[in-house]
């Protein structure tokens, strides 16, 4: 090759190499390598580099000062009070009221479909110490929540900035085991994992976990299980405390699950889409979240469905609001988070979402709304509100809560891999 060619290749760009000199196989590979390096690896290396400063956060400094004009709020689908205005456009009343009161605009996005997916999206930016674009995110307690806290990827909250929370939050929402002293989070909504039953298809009462492995009670090929909640839920019902469990206990739970699978009762292992099959009559019984079944039973008229609290215990999970590191408007974020602990606002959300509210005062307000509706002759609506307010699984007392447990927090990648190695093959089959 002549001198011109060598110079072109040393400059690096592949197009240069083609345009200036004769193309040989060696030249092509050299140029391609450089091109790939320039375009591809740079981005990867940047993502992998540890860029976060490990200095301790000072909550007073972070949450002090004037809140900015805009808050970016990422949440799960259908997890806030929606309604339609006169022209039929959908809007969120509680956020509209917040903006009216404070002048801060809220950009609410249903950006979270699952914890691992959303975590996967945020992780590269958090690792590199960059702004994720969100001021508030809602993550369930579990391995991803723990990872965000342990890696210092969420800000510790300023305790002096959430008076409504301090005054109105339920006991279970304050100082939970997965976030002592609510250092980083405030609960958004919560729920229980229990057994959803279609009374038309089961052949007897299904109130225990073992019933879900018994073909005489639930039939063959008609039972659903929730992939993510399964391990913790089975452990709770076997009398094991998930929080202190180790690989021996995990293998015990896995053995039960294999026994269940071998008995032929399983229809499918679900990520979250069990409710369609339950309402369609394809399932006789399934692991289910309390709010889902409550909605269909009380509000959509499916009288044949019921949600049972398993005799040996249920899983309690909480979706928590967090402020990611490098958020643009933390002062505004904590103001919005605390706003949702005002009883009236919390009632608006819970009446729509139908999951456990972290504000117990909402119970009386729901019953008051039920009475108001009855006075205005909306009998059906009043009855539904009444059933919701009186539901023990919406406002659990201490005895009920004592029979529930949080799941195991997997703190390291090694624990996570072992857990997955034991439990994933069961649902993957």
């Amino acid at each position, binding site marked *: 090759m002549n001198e*011109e060619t060598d110079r072109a290749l040393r400059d690096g760009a*592949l*197009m240069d190499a*083609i*345009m*200036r000199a*004769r*193309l040989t196989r060696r030249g092509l590979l050299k140029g*391609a390598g450089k*091109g*790939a390096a320039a*375009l*591809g*690896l740079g981005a*990867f290396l940047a*993502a*992998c580099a*540890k860029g976060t400063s490990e200095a301790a956060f000072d909550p007073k400094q972070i949450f002090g000062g004037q809140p900015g004009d805009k808050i970016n709020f990422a949440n799960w689908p259908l997890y806030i009070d929606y309604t339609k205005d006169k022209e039929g456009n959908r809007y969120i009343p509680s956020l509209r009221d917040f903006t009216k009161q404070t002048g801060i605009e809220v950009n609410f996005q249903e950006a979270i479909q*699952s914890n*691992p*997916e959303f*975590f*996967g999206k945020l*992780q*590269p930016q958090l*690792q590199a110490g960059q702004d994720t674009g969100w001021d508030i995110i809602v993550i369930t307690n579990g*391995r*991803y929540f*723990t*990872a965000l806290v*342990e*890696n210092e990827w969420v800000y510790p909250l300023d305790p002096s900035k959430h008076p409504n929370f301090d005054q109105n939050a339920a006991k279970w929402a304050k100082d939970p085991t997965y976030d002592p002293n609510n250092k980083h989070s405030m609960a958004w909504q919560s729920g229980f994992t229990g057994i959803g039953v279609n009374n038309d298809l089961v052949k007897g009462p299904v109130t225990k976990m073992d019933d879900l492995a018994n073909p005489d009670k639930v*039939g*063959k*090929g*008609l039972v659903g299980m929730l992939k993510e909640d399964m391990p913790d839920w089975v452990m709770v019902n076997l009398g094991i405390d998930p929080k202190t469990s180790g690989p021996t206990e995990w293998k015990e739970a896995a053995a039960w699950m294999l026994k269940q*699978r071998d008995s032929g009762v*399983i*229809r*499918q*292992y679900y*990520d979250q889409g069990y409710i*369609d099959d339950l309402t*369609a*009559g*394809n399932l006789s019984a399934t692991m289910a979240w309390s709010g889902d079944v409550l909605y269909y039973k009380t509000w959509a008229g499916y009288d044949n469905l019921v949600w049972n609290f398993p005799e040996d215990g249920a899983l309690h999970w909480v979706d928590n609001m967090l402020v990611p590191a490098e958020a643009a408007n933390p002062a505004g974020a904590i103001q919005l988070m605390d706003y949702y602990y005002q009883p009236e606002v919390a009632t608006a959300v819970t009446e729509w979402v139908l999951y456990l509210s972290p504000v117990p005062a909402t119970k009386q307000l729901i019953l008051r709304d039920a009475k108001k509706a009855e006075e205005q002759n909306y009998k059906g609506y009043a009855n539904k509100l009444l059933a919701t307010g009186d539901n023990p699984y919406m406002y659990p007392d201490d005895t009920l809560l004592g029979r529930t447990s949080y799941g195991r927090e*997997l*703190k*390291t*990648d090694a624990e*996570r*891999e072992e857990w*997955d190695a034991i439990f*994933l093959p069961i*649902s*993957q*089959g």
Partner: protein
Amino acid sequence: MAEGGAVQETAAEPGGAQRGLQSRRRLVPYYLLGPAGAWLLVFLLLPMLLLAYTSLQSGGILSGGFHFTWEFSNYVDGVRQYQKFFIRSVEYSLIVTFVALLLAYPMTYWIAFYGGRWKSSLLLLILIPFFVSFVIRTIQWKFILGDNGFILGPLKSLGILPDSYHVLATPLAVVAGITYNFIPFTALPLYVALERIDKRLVEAAKDLYSSRWEAFRHVVWPLSLPGVFAAFLLTFVPATGDYVNAAVLGGPGTTMIGNIIQDKFLTQNDYPEAAALSVVLMLGMLVLASLYARILGTEDSTLAAAAGGAA
């Protein structure tokens, strides 16, 4: 610049004008390749390289992220742990491809040979479902095949099927769903190949005392083999990696390798392992496709068929 250089070279030598023209002509193919080459580079080659790069990383998402460490154990562990799913996916997609060929061949044969004026409209009928999203069509099958839906419901109330019978969450539903989704991929290459066959050859065969069946066997079938080959590949390769049907219509015991890879990427955030499995799947498909091409190479097969016919 190149032309300047070429002109400079030629000015210094005798017969230079001739040389200049020749070297410019030699560069024209590269100019023509340029746009497509750039496209393939950015959208095919680079992603492949990034995938391979990711597959050799190690680490975890909860702690420290992923780093490039030439981790070939991702491949070894992946194949060892998930070989059952690779095999199952290949099994399913072989069934899918054969059923699709069996269904599509007569249909496209009829359209190509007897379609007449309505050829394009009939083809359009095959393609119309394609205008609706793949995922939505698969979800619709959940309703169609529902335990008490409008197919199984009447059959059950008539007593033809037992009450506990269900199609969803079985391998049958998954294979049926994949076949349904890939029939256009099978039908189109077959149609193209059959369309191109000169109908007068069939006439000539009949003039030489062959029956309709023999005419098909000795004339039409060998000539359509390139189409069968293309249809097979176009159906088999994507069907193996399919995950939507197994996720929506399947149950325990129908998980395909596509579902495993999806789980690894989105649920476990185990990007290196997922990338390794993807690379293995791609290489596996490449190897199978090249073997298939070798054994059933298009020209050889037509010659072989002709020779077999003559003998």
